């Protein structure tokens, strides 16, 4: 079965999620991956959205972080203060998802500005929950498409901290969580290299070449010694994902055209 780069990215992310994970879910690919996992390999996974909805199980993907569907299918919904204090800072989240406008090789993330902070070329939305998702989630999974504009050698602003300049810098700063343990893109799976903590490619998706990889990444890519054999998305995974997206489109389309 053929699939799009977005589809293999979402399926890949879903495969890493486990039944005992408690995920702090963001809108877009992370939300699709988490809900796909819930519908396939990890039916008991716990999903939390930063709007305060705990143990939520949306039947369709939310368009915003605070859709009514998230609340009405949740076990309970708490205040913003409680969400960030008891659940995120409290260390209850096993996997926090982040995306980025800019990412560097040590998993540091910029979603704040392109250019200078005080006179930016492009003012981006900013961090929102991300600075603390990066430091308080037991692990961070980054999901984003590769492109030379976003995979850069130097990010313009440290919105969310990964491994800083690498090595033990994260631990030296007193941060006790693991940081970015996975980078899932539309082309490959990346993991931090032991010791240096530079992200390295551990698996290429079927058909992806090293040339293609380097064209979309602004630093010399490091590859693991033995790349894993990557199993392409199964028919079942793709069908469930497409079905979820179709339901989502129908649900949101219906409301909009009513």
């Amino acid at each position, binding site marked *: 079965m053929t699939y799009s780069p977005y589809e293999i990215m979402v399926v890949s992310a879903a495969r890493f999620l486990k039944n005992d994970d408690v995920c702090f879910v963001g809108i877009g690919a992370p939300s699709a991956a988490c809900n796909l996992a819930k519908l396939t390999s990890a039916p008991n996974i716990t999903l939390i959205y930063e709007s305060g909805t705990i143990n939520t199980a949306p039947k369709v993907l939310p368009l915003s972080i605070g859709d009514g569907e998230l609340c*009405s299918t949740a076990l309970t919904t708490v205040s913003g203060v409680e969400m960030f204090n008891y659940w995120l800072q409290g260390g209850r989240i096993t996997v926090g998802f982040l995306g980025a406008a800019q990412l560097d090789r040590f998993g540091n993330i910029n979603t704040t500005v392109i250019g200078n902070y005080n006179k*930016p070329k492009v003012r981006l*939305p900013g*961090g929102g929950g991300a600075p603390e998702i990066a430091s308080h989630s037991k692990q961070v999974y980054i999901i984003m498409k590769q492109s030379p504009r976003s995979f850069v050698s130097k990010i313009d602003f440290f919105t969310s901290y990964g491994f800083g300049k690498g090595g033990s810098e994260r631990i030296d700063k007193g941060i006790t969580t693991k940081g970015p343990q996975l980078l899932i893109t539309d082309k490959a799976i990346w993991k931090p290299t032991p010791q240096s903590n530079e992200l390295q490619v551990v698996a290429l998706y079927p058909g992806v070449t090293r040339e293609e990889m380097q064209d979309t990444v602004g630093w010399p890519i490091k590859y693991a010694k033995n790349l894993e054999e990557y199993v392409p998305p199964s028919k079942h995974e793709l069908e469930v994902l497409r079905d979820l997206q179709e339901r989502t489109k129908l649900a949101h389309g219906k409301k909009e055209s009513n």
Partner: protein
Amino acid sequence: MTKFQPLSTAINENLESGSFVAFEGFTHLIPYAAAHETIRSGVKDLTLARMTPDVIYDQMIGMGIVKKLIFSYAGNPGVGLLRRLRDAVENDWPKPLEIEEHSHAAMANSYEAGASNLPMAILRGYQGADLINVNPRIKTIECPFSGEYLAAVPALKPDVSIIHAQKADINGNVLVEGIIGVQKQAALAADKALVTVEEVVLDLGSHPNACVIPSWAISSISVVPGGAHPSYAQGYYERDNSTYLEWDKISSDRNAFSEWMQTNVLDQSPEIFAERVKHLRE
């Protein structure tokens, strides 16, 4: 003790140019009608606080009535960037915008500190992040017990906080239900809390531990059905996603923006909101 007032009276009596105002609501229950009334009221030089500025602040910034913005995520949720805010920050149009930027965690705690009459909030925050280097309102303090360093941010104490809620009872007690965000904290942090509601009922009929704000902690209540549109009110009407998508186009052009604001805000009154949500009621 609160009073029931038309929205225009509530806004005119409580806001003035230079006021520090928070319009809160996290995706859900965003007080759009009150924001539009604020634009019509002619006040300017506002300092606005809001975790997620959203389309509501994009409109106020684009109209040039905002002097300073305190925020933690300036996006059009699920859509993209806020183009009027970008134009103000990047190009000073229609005028320069001063910004004070935090993370969500810090800002939620700042409201809580305000509601608790504390001068600051502490959190484990901004670790390794650059925001602490560009915002002098983020400091660090040392824990006298553990020796650890924590982030400290000043309490948010707006002159006026404005929220939208599902309902008030006839005594003016207000129920907020569903995704409750920081509405209670924002309301209690302010000198004056203004509330718009979908309806007034005899009895809130709520759960013992529901999020209820007693009438004596509220300055004014205005009944504005649909007042959260294009945001939503759980149990009343759904989020108008297409309006959020359209905003991306409208806001991308200064003229299109100005025309839209004239037609849809300046020439309107709060009554239009009931119309706008008709097709979204469940």
